[in-house]
């Protein structure tokens, strides 16, 4: 049974009704005034199905073509002509493949985020020169100084002692000489942040009075600084930076340029703080540095316990209930190992695994 179609000669926009059928010579096209044209099967190029859109049959070495409506008649003709759709067409038209692709895409994104990204950052980070981290670290410290940090009120004498202890600590690891130009201990205070110390990717370390005041024993403070040196040695800051930039770039490409705000929020949520692994790595490193000085990793345990106590005290009884939930959530997104776990690990290290 012939199939109704439209024939275009490729020379003009004229649309002519035509009938298509299979003949011994291949595809037979008949127009309304009886004209005939046969096309060998090998020369026929069938368009891929695109939803409800009409299909086209183009002919090799010719600008002419036929336009045909989709339907059972056309499918039957294709079957007669022995047409086989490319694999990709099967994939696009079956939900099973579509779902598999969707799962595949999600899997690639999740796996890329969980493993690929940290791995890639770990590989690239050692090749990033320390000097390249200088401007971004300077800018970050400036921002903090402006909004959250205040000058330290620590007496000069104690500062000098800590400074000397810190330099002795850093000198223990020859690998840290890469940071020689910038590595420094800076003193600040911040009632807002509370007891804390942090390190910038170029080697500047900031110690807050609030943390120093928790400890009578300077060795405990130095244990915390050794932990920060561990972040530096492992290039955790650079790795975080690489990871968050990649997340931002992928999110921007995925959601389009419009949702830059969503991108900012998303990447902030996905890359807050160091990972559990990085914290553990820094703990192990600190334990090793302390051991080289003939000190016990127990010092870091003590420091952590005091920090934890200070943190618990900070939450007054009245709002502990309210904040409990939020903290759980924040804890989860920041992916920090909880302090108890870290203390247990360090105790194991102190008990002679080393």
């Amino acid at each position, binding site marked *: 049974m012939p199939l*109704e*179609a*439209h024939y*275009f*000669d*490729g*020379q*003009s*926009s*004229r*649309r002519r*009704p035509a009938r298509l059928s299979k003949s011994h010579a291949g595809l037979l096209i008949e127009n309304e005034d009886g004209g005939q044209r046969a096309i060998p099967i090998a020369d026929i190029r069938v*368009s*891929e199905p*695109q*939803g*409800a*859109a*009409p299909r*086209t049959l183009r002919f090799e070495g010719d*600008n*002419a*073509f036929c*336009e*045909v*409506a*989709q*339907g059972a008649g056309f499918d039957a003709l294709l079957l007669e002509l022995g047409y086989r759709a490319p694999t*990709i067409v099967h*994939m*696009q*038209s079956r*939900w099973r*493949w*579509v779902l598999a*692709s*969707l799962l*595949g*895409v999600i899997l*690639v994104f999740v796996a890329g985020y969980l493993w690929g990204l940290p791995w890639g950052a770990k590989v690239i980070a050692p090749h990033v020169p320390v000097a390249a981290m200088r401007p971004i670290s300077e800018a970050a410290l400036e921002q903090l100084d402006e*909004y*959250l940090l*205040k*000058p330290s009120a620590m007496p000069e004498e104690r500062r000098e002692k800590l400074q000397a202890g810190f330099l002795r600590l850093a000198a223990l690891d020859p690998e840290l000489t890469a940071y020689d130009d910038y590595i420094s201990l800076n003193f600040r205070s911040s*009632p*807002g*942040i*509370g007891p804390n110390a942090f390190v910038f990717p170029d080697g500047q370390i900031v110690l807050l009075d609030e943390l120093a005041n928790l400890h009578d024993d300077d060795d405990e403070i130095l244990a915390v600084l050794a932990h920060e040196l561990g972040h530096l040695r492992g290039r955790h800051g650079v790795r975080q930076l690489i990871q968050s930039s990649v997340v931002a770039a992928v999110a921007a490409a*995925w*959601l*389009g*340029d*419009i*949702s830059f*705000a*969503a991108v900012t929020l998303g990447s902030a949520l996905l890359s807050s703080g160091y990972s559990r692994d990085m914290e553990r790595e820094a703990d192990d490193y600190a334990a090793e540095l302390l051991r080289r000085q003939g000190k016990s990793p127990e010092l870091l345990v003590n420091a952590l316990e005091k920090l934890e106590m200070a943190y618990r005290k*900070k939450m*007054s009884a009245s709002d502990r209930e309210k*904040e409990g939930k*939020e903290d759980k959530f924040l804890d989860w997104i920041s992916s920090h190992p909880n302090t108890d776990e870290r203390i247990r690990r360090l105790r194991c290290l102190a008990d002679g695994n080393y």
Partner: protein
Amino acid sequence: MQDAILPDNALSLAEHAYAPDEQPTFGVNTPPETVTEHRLQFVGSGSEYFKIWIVNLFLNILTLGIYSAWAKVRREQYFHRNTLLDGSGFDYHGDPKAILKGRVLAVGFFATLALIENLAPFQYYILALLLSAPLIPWLIVRSFVFRSRNTSFRGLHFDFRGTYKGLCKAFLVYVLALVAIASMFVAVNYSLEQVLINNQTTTEQSIAVEDDDTYVEDDEACAEGSEDGHVYSEEDAIFAAAMGFLILFGFLVMMLLIPAAVGTLKRFQLNHLAFGASGFQTRFRLSSFYGVYLRASLPFIAILSAASILGAVIALVAFVTTAGELKEFYEPAVEAQSQELSHESVVTAEEAKESLQKLFAEAMEQGALPEIVVEAEDQESNQEPVAAAEALEPPNDEIDTEGLLVGVIIIFVIFMAIYLPAVLVTQGYLSALTANLIWNNTGLEKHGFVSDQKFWGITGITLSNWLLILLTAGLYWPWAKVRLAAYRARHTAVLAADDLDNFIAGATREKSAIGEEIADIFDFDIAL
């Protein structure tokens, strides 16, 4: 016969006699009596396109992006073939291999730019400008050529006959204006620097003379001058103001040139576009683009003013209800601050103001909680203020950083909820108005066009699309694209003077994808 071979949904094609009140502009001035309006019709569906899109995306990932050229051809074919005019579909003929070649070259181009940035960071901007400025017109022309030659309807290909030279000529006025404004900026910058240098040398001289004097006296000298201690004459101030005005004027001129430049580009694009051997002709005036931009900015202005008024009312209500409490705990703090300031040898009004601003900023950061910690800037003179601060401190004396975080999130949400939709609505409306202006004033031989996109229609689609894209983490994207394509097709029509049978093919020429692919990455808006 004709109906029998068309897809079912093509039967509903709106074909009605042309109503005289929708007076179109024809390329040729013989408006025939028997004009038929053929609405474009988009017969694709979101779920169909989703299947194509997700499979292509997965293959892109598997092939590390090499497949993207084939994916692009499938995407273009889906949208071309599902757009029907008088029952026949458009078609796309881009060659994936040509596109891949273009993409490789585009990546090479950007790698070169990155390399230049690494090797010569200081000369980078000049080099990048010199390298890309002559390239931009070429990219535009090549991408118009590639797109049009690979689009066909009823077996005839479109063509673009514009040239590099033609585009440069059309934009000569704007380039000259831009160069003039840029050189003016450079000149202004230079003369301001001269004034600054002159003053610095005089100040340095005076400091050299007063070298033996005490610091206090030096400070007093500073206090008499402006904030940074330099003494500017009245003429200098007038000169600086005049320069500032010039800069403002330059930016204003640049802004005012934008609608005309966009109009010029659209005119260049359409006047050189051809279907087969027949060329399109436009009749719009550049001045009409000012009307379009003005109208498109109205919803933006309306949304932002409504939001500002609402914000002001809320702030006012909050202030009235909390004014008493605020006063109680700000007053002692302000006193402490002024006490601190009185200890410094010389205080300029500027510095005092700054300190107060800082204090209030701090208070705001804390979410206006009563824990204000007054702190001295200076290590040497901080005894008294710290004592005052200690007296002020409540027992629980920590700044609420979580409060700060919540504040930032609230500002972020407000931004997301007001500014972004305003931008999206404006962009959508601007593209709708531009399409209306262009197509209602364009002809092809004796045929005309109609575009009647409406504000509420395009706004509804734009906003719901982006909302759903955000809610579905991007998975709604294919549906969004289909909805927009369907709306645009519904609101575009060809006013056919006959049965559209009489176009003939033009000469065929080569097609290179290089321009289009680089342009693709630059994200030029080259859609018709």
